[in-house]
Structure formats: C-alpha cells, structure tokens
C-alpha cells in the first residue's frame, strides 16, 4: 500500500513522449500510477531532471569470463577503500574493482548512476549456474542474461538442415534450462573454428567440419527468433571485430536482416541488434591508414528501421577486454602482449580475456574513441542507438556519465581531443572534430533507457514512466531549463543521482546507497509443445559429448534468484 509522489521535476520519458515537461510522477505498490492519495511520501524534484531508471542493454557483469577477469587481475583492485577514488563501504558489502567490479560494487554503482536494470551480454549455457550465483550477489538492479547460440552444435546442425522449427524448440528449451532472456550470437562460427585455432572472418567462411557459414547461422537464428516471437531480436556481435576494414563485413552482416520482419507481441520493431558497433566500424586496411567507418555504417543503420545498435564507446581507460570472440582475444594478446586467458566451452562457445589500455596518446585509441561518439552523433533515431561501452571492453560502465558528457558537449569533446598527442592524425582519420551536434536530455533518455527497453521488448516494464511500468526512477541534479556551461557538471550529475528509486523504494539518496530491496532475474519463458526429435537429439549429445549429465544441466529452481518470467506463447 505504499505510495510516493515525485513532484515538480523536469520529466524526460520518450516512451510516453514527455520532453522535459514539469510533471509529477505517482507511484503505488512499486508501479507507476495515475495518481496517489495525499498520504503519499513526497519527493521534491523541483529544478531536477527525472527519468526512468537506466537500462543497460549490453554489459559483461556476471559470469565465468567476467569472473576469470576478476581473478586474473588483482591489479584492478588497486584503488580501494578511500585510496584514490575507491568507494568507502556504503551498502551491506564492500566494493572492489575498477574495470571489473565485484558483483556488489556492480549493483551499487549502477544504482548510484540511476540504472535499475542490466542485461548480461553473454552466458555460456553450460556455465549458467555460475551466472545465476553472481546475479544473486548483485544488489538492487534487476538482471537478465543472454545465452550464446552462434557456435552451438545443435544450432549448426538444425540450421544446416533447414530445420527451423527444431532449432526453435531447442532455443526455447535452452532459454528455459538457463533462464536466459534472448538469443545472443558472438562471432558466429568463428569461435567453433577457434577450438581448432582457426576463425571465420567473413560471413561466408565455412566452419570447420560443420560446413555452415556465419551468414547461414545468422539468418537461421533470425528466422528462429521471429518464429518464436521473442521479446528481443537476435543480439549480434558480428565477425571480423576490431580489424581495419571490418566495416565491410559489418555492412554485409547487417544486410542479412533485410529479408526478415519482426514478429512479436512486445512492441519490438527490429530483427537484428548489432552490439558495440564502434568495434565494427573501421575503415582502412592497416593500423597505419586506419580510419572511421562510422558514417558508412550509420547511413545504413539510419535507413533501416529493422536494425538497432549499441555504441560500445571507448572511454580512454585501462580496462579489460573479454568476449566470446576467442580468436579475437588471442589476436589482441599477440598485438599488445598483455596476459591472455581463454576458455573454450564444449559444444557451445568460447571466451578470451586480455587487459587493454586505451591510451589517449595512441592514434588508434583516439580514433576508436572518436568512432564511438560519431555513431551516436550520426544517428537520426536515438531510440535505435543505445549507449554502452560494451563494459568492460571499451571501458567501465561507470564511465557512462563521461560518455554522456561527450555526447552533450562539443566543448568536452574538443577538450579531450586537445589532450591527445596525435590529435591531428586522429582528426584526419575521423569526422568528430567537425561535428557540432550536441545531444539533449531527451535524446540521452532515448539512448539510456527508452531505446534499450523497447529493443528488448520490455518497455511496458522498464525504461518508461508510463502507467503500469515498474516504478524505477532516477532523479539527476540537472536543471534542464538552466543547463550548466561546464560540461564536467553533466558528468558529475549523471555519476551520482540525488535519488534512485527501484520499484518505489528509495535505494540511493544524496549519492549514497540507503536500501537494498529485492531484485529480479528476468528471463523469457517460451511455452511451446515439446518436440520429441529435439529431446532425443539433446539426450544423445549429452550422453556422448557433454561431460555433465543432462539432468544436472538446467539450472535448478533453487539457484535462480527471484525469477521473473516474460511469457511467450508459440502454437
């Protein structure tokens, strides 16, 4: 019966179309409602910016490769406690780590930035119980996780045989077994090739033995996704990431979506979400003539409503790269000679981890930084272009406020450019310096809450201040009528909310954690008739090839933390 009203704030809610009007937000029993009684707790948001809680569509925060990154990098914990920017304990548990924070720090840090939901970018199905253990120890925010399918032996065989219905049955079985939310694809085919030391760098390179191409895998999974009508589209990390000239692979990849239409009951309008597209927007053919392909990529994205992307912005930090693109990580280690970890996972996927320093004084890093921002600044529709850093690959998620600052202030971008040793070369290889566009708060709201929620098919619950949505709200110390001229104030405002509210409970007040209420594991529950052929195939592969028994594979109910299922009916 608890009621709350947030009064007089400048509200930015793209889902409802509210562009900075002064409006009251009413909350009852954890949901947004039309109005409340006069017994409601009052929060005065006069002169402040009010948005829905942030939604992070792609971040690596829970799971085995994230954790191996933590384990292998004690130096990532150098700044701790009150030493140089570490956090003194605010919540129930201590906070450790910079580029790969502990699960406790992850939840607290997102909450302090006004985020209330994060989507784990990649879950290796065999290791799903690990992901769920970490979700349990991540406070405050709701979390979902996407199992990876792009190097899965079952999918290879079903797609190769054009058995989409069987593939759909397998996908829905796996989503249930792992309590996953969507179809994630990473370096399709290439990570299976990497199990033999190989890769697939174009969408037509066949996978060793399985003889299927990345193009076929992607199209097969788009078709599967729409057959099932899942809330989200396929979420794709395409082939040839990170190499000069890769923008051509990216365009060829994006074009694969042209033959398909979104089919779902969740308001989703895209059939393909291309993640961290900064890493896929490189022109040139070597590091010497490396340059931005952001314009070419965004010309295509702008004219294709059925594509959404997230930026993957580089933040110019020392950080940790980690991805299921195993061969890319080996390649990166051969470039920078910093310690390399790798975990190939039977029948399913792989991963690699390599620390990386995005040094502003290295030309290539400066260009990467510029490309990430160009992606957003070229965008016509920011509902389809979401703000991420592919945490921690291009930078820690705690730098989102810094990225927002850069997007909202050309002065801030110039200031950063001016610190670069090779500023002139960076400018020559990119377009950023000549772009004077500055995003406004409404567009930032699109990039950081409304857009991701809609692309995930969850805008009735998240990223929205419309009636019926979860009462997840962030109140920032920014007066939209009198925006500060110093861009640093933008970064500091987005770094620490005045209030973060999660389902109607104040969790952050005056920049500090004040409550840790329960939170959910979101997953997609597909209700479809059992498929005897697929069940037979599953049993056979477990008996012969897996090293874990079938009955121990699906995550036991007792290990799922507060599950919240999004239900999908398939005839």
């Amino acid at each position, binding site marked *: 019966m608890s009621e709350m009203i947030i009064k007089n704030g400048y509200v930015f809610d793209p889902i409802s179309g509210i562009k900075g009007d002064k409006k009251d937000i009413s909350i009852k029993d954890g949901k947004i409602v039309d109005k409340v009684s006069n017994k409601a707790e009052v929060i005065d948001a006069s002169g402040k910016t009010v948005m829905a809680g942030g939604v992070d569509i792609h971040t690596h925060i*829970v799971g*085995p490769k*994230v*954790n*191996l990154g*933590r*384990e*292998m990098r*004690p130096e*990532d*914990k150098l700044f*701790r*406690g009150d*030493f140089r920017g*570490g956090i*003194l*304990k605010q919540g129930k*548990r*201590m906070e*450790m*780590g910079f580029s*790969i924070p*502990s*699960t*406790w720090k992850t939840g607290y840090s997102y909450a302090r930035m006004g985020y209330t939901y994060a989507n784990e970018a990649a879950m290796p199905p*065999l*290791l799903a*119980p*690990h992901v769920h*253990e*970490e979700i349990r*120890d991540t406070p405050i925010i709701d979390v979902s996780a996407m199992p990876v399918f792009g190097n899965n*032996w079952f999918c290879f065989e079903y797609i190769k045989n054009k058995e989409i219905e069987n593939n759909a049955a397998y996908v829905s079985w796996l989503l249930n077994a792992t309590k996953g939310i969507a179809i994630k694809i990473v370096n399709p085919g290439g990570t299976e090739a990497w*199990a*033999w*030391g190989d890769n697939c760098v174009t969408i037509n390179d066949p996978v060793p*033995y399985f003889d299927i191409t990345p193009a076929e895998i992607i199209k097969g999974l788009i078709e599967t996704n729409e057959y099932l009508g899942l809330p989200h589209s396929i979420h794709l990390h395409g082939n040839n990431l990170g190499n000069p000239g890769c923008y051509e692979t990216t365009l060829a990849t994006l074009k694969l979506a042209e033959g398909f239409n979104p089919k779902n009951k969740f308001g989703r309008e895209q059939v393909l979400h291309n993640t961290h597209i900064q890493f896929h927007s490189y022109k040139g053919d070597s590091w010497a003539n490396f340059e931005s392909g952001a314009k070419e990529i965004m010309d295509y994205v702008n004219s294709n409503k059925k594509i959404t992307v997230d930026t993957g912005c580089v933040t110019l930090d020392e950080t940790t790269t980690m991805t299921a693109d195993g061969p890319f990580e*080996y390649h990166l*280690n051969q470039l920078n000679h910093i*310690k*390399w*970890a*790798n*975990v*190939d*996972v*039977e*029948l399913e996927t792989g991963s690699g*981890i*390599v620390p990386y320093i995005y040094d502003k004084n290295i030309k290539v890093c400066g260009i990467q930084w510029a490309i990430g921002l160009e992606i957003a600044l070229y965008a016509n529709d920011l509902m389809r272009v979401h703000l991420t850093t592919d945490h921690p690959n291009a930078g820690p998620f705690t730098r989102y406020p810094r990225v927002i600052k850069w997007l909202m202030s050309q002065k801030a971008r110039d200031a950063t450019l001016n610190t670069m040793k090779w500023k002139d070369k960076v400018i020559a290889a990119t377009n950023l310096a000549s772009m004077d566009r500055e995003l406004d708060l409404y567009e930032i709201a699109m990039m950081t809450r409304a857009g991701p929620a809609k692309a995930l098919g969850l805008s009735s619950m998240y990223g929205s201040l419309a009636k019926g949505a979860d009462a997840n709200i962030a109140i920032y110390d920014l007066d939209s009528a009198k925006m500060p001229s110093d861009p640093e104030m933008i970064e500091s405002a987005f770094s620490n909310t005045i209030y973060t509210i999660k389902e109607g409970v104040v969790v952050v007040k005056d920049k500090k954690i004040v409550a840790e209420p329960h939170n959910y594991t979101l997953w997609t529950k597909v209700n479809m008739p059992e498929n005897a052929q697929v069940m037979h195939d599953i049993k056979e592969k477990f008996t012969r*090839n*897996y*090293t*874990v*028994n079938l*009955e*121990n594979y699906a995550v*036991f109910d*007792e*290990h799922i933390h507060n599950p919240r299922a999004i239900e999908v009916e398939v005839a």
Partner: protein
Amino acid sequence: MPKVIENVGCPYCGCSCDDVRVTVSDDGKKVLEVENVCAIGTEIFKHGSSDHRIRSPRLRQPDGSMKDITYEEAIEWTAQHLYKAKKPLMYGFGSTNCEGQAAAARVMEAAGGMLDNCATICHGPSFLAIFDNGYPTCTLGEVKNRADVIVYWGSNPAHAHPRHMSRYSIFPRGFFTGKGQKKRTVIVIDPRYTDTANVADYHLQVKQGHDYELFDAFRMVVNGHGNDLPDEVAGIKKEKILEVAEIMKNARFGTTFFGMGLTHSDGRNHNIDIAISLTRDLNKVSKWTIMAMRGHYNIAGPGVVWSWTFGFPYCLDLTKKDHAHMNPGETSSVDMAMRDEVDMFINIGTDAGAHFPIPAVKHLKKHPWVTIDPSINMASEISDLHIPVCICGVDVGGIVYRMDNVPIQFRKVIDNQGLLDDETLLNRIADRLDELNAQGA
C-alpha cells in the same frame, strides 16, 4: 523400498563426477549402495551415513575431553571469539559448497579477519602465475571431444583423480575422438614412474625440481631453436625432448594437465608461469590449452566465489572491513601462522592439523581453534570447538566448481537428521556478528 537416486555428484576430487548412482534406504537416512564412483567416492558416501557421524557440536573441556553442546551455543562461542580477535583466520573450503563459501565471506567481512582456502598450500602458485601470465584453458568436454595429445606434468591422476583419464582425457570417445585412446598420445612428465606413467606413451623422468629447465627446452624447440639444446636438460636427453616437442607441435588439439609436482617444488609459480608461456607458444603452430588439476571437488569454488565478492581468489585480508587486500606470502595462511600473526583459527572443510607442516599447526594452536567439518580428523581432535556440518552431495546440495570451473549442481541423497549445513551455520554466525558490531559501534 530403497530409492535409487541418479545424477548424483561426488564430493571428493576435482573431477566432480556427477553421474553417481546412490541407493538409499526407505527412511532416507542411510546409503546402501553407490555406483559409478571410484574407490574414494565409495568411502565418502558410506562414511556420510555411518552411525559414527558426529551429530552435535563439541566443546573442549579443561580436562581435555569434549562435551556436546548445542548449535546455538557453538554459534555464540564462535561469534564472540571472532568479534574479540584482532586477526582471526578462517581457512579451508576444499569441501564446502559455494553457498557456504559465500556465507563465510560474509562472516569474515563482518568480523574483520583473514579468509583463505586450500589453494594457499596447493594451486596458489598457479594463481600467482595466472595473475602474471593469463590462463589459456578449456572445459573438460573440449579435451574429451577434440584432444589427440595429452600431457600430465607433475600430476598423477591415477591416484589423485581416479576417473579423470576415463571420463575426460585418455579413454573417452568424443565427437572428434571416436577412436578413444587408440588415437591419443599421452605424455607423462614426472620424476617417479607413477601409475599414470604406466599407461602413457611417453614417460619423461624429469629430475625433481628441474621442471622449469625442461619447459624452457620445450619452448626453445617450439620457437625454432631446438638445435641449440644441450645434450641433456633436467635429466632428459635432447633427442627425447625434440621427439616429444614435435608430437606437441603437431597435435590437432593438445592439453597439458599439471599438479603439485610443479606447484610444490622449487620455483612454485615460476614453474606454472613457464608452462603457460609454452602453451601460448604452442598456439602459434597448433591448438593447446592448459589446466590445473584442482584437488578437491569444490576447491575452485572459493576462488570463484571470492573473486566475484572481493576481487581476489584467496589470501584475503578483510581486517579493514571496507576493502580487501591480497598479498600471498604476507596474507597467506602458513606464512601468517609461522609469523604468529593469527590470534584465532577456524578450520573449515579441511584438515590443517594433518596437512599443514606441523610447525604451523603448533603456532596456530596457541590460540582458539574451531573446526567446522563433518569428520573426526586431526584438526577436530586438537580443536577447542568442533562443529559438525552436512557433507555436500550427501546430506546437502549446492553448487560446486569442477577443476575446469564448470559449475556442477549437487543434490543431497540422505536426510541431514538435524545437522546444519555450512551456509546456514555461517549465516547465523554472520548475523550474530552484525548484532555485536551494531552494539559495539
């Protein structure tokens, strides 16, 4: 009617086998039969339901005898001593489930103490190498399905991981390895002619403590300098080194399993470090992975759980309560014991009384000693307080991490008959510490 329970996990070694079949009595209290398990696993399940299980905490009396007390009293005793201690150490966790390990983290953060696990005397040097040099590895199913060359270096699975060779590495027929052992080449590098060497194709009887030189020799060959090798390195002839290195270079998929032969000898982490470098070198010409043969069914667990909780896998200094510090050598259990820095010791899911060098045991015994463990063992028999708990896989379930960090979900097969599990016990100790901290503040 006796019940058959399938897909049971075995709580002994790092194989963490999950295909065990257990027949239990109708009343759910006794294990009648165990199948698919090695000889050691059989003993665990038998012992787990034996009439001799300790079912009540016991407190040492002034005359040296033990007196049964309640769990409540044991929790109070432990919490009070933790609260008063300046630098208490909780160590062990080879045989606790992850839920227990997470609860232990809560306890020692609240108490402001030291938190360490068996890796500190086991694969700790492997961690040190991983911190510097990374870890190119895979899950055991990749070995089963792909590997045609297997190296066991300083590892004797015939004795320490009895089903390893049959479940994962040498004998199984996997997807790309349909001919099983016939198409695999097995290389054992060990100063002893072990039972594992006995089933190998090659046994290199390396001079004990000189593995580093032999790794270096292999690296020379992989990097094209084999001709510059001396006639003999670490007791192995040059021709043999060249022959074996060629096999490794020409592998379709190779895996090096390593164990205490490397981590316990002179050089410790440097032995692992160069093994990792060799693996990385081999990936230039072939496909190779490396894997630590973790000893216990869930000794990978605390490393995993504490990494996500604190950012470090072992040797944790939580004394400041608001941040964690790790510095093996400084914050490692045996070193702290030898320097008399610990003023309370909790031995959990292990037996430091038997497995620490006895001088360390003597130092620790100068202070209050609690043992949290289902068994009568050396630690319990010198403890001030012995608190029995459930055995993971027998009377409590939970998640455990196999040696390749794959999480295995264990089930319980018999009723706990009043025994507490680690998670419940430790959470209650943590709750009590929270209360004491709030009062004392």
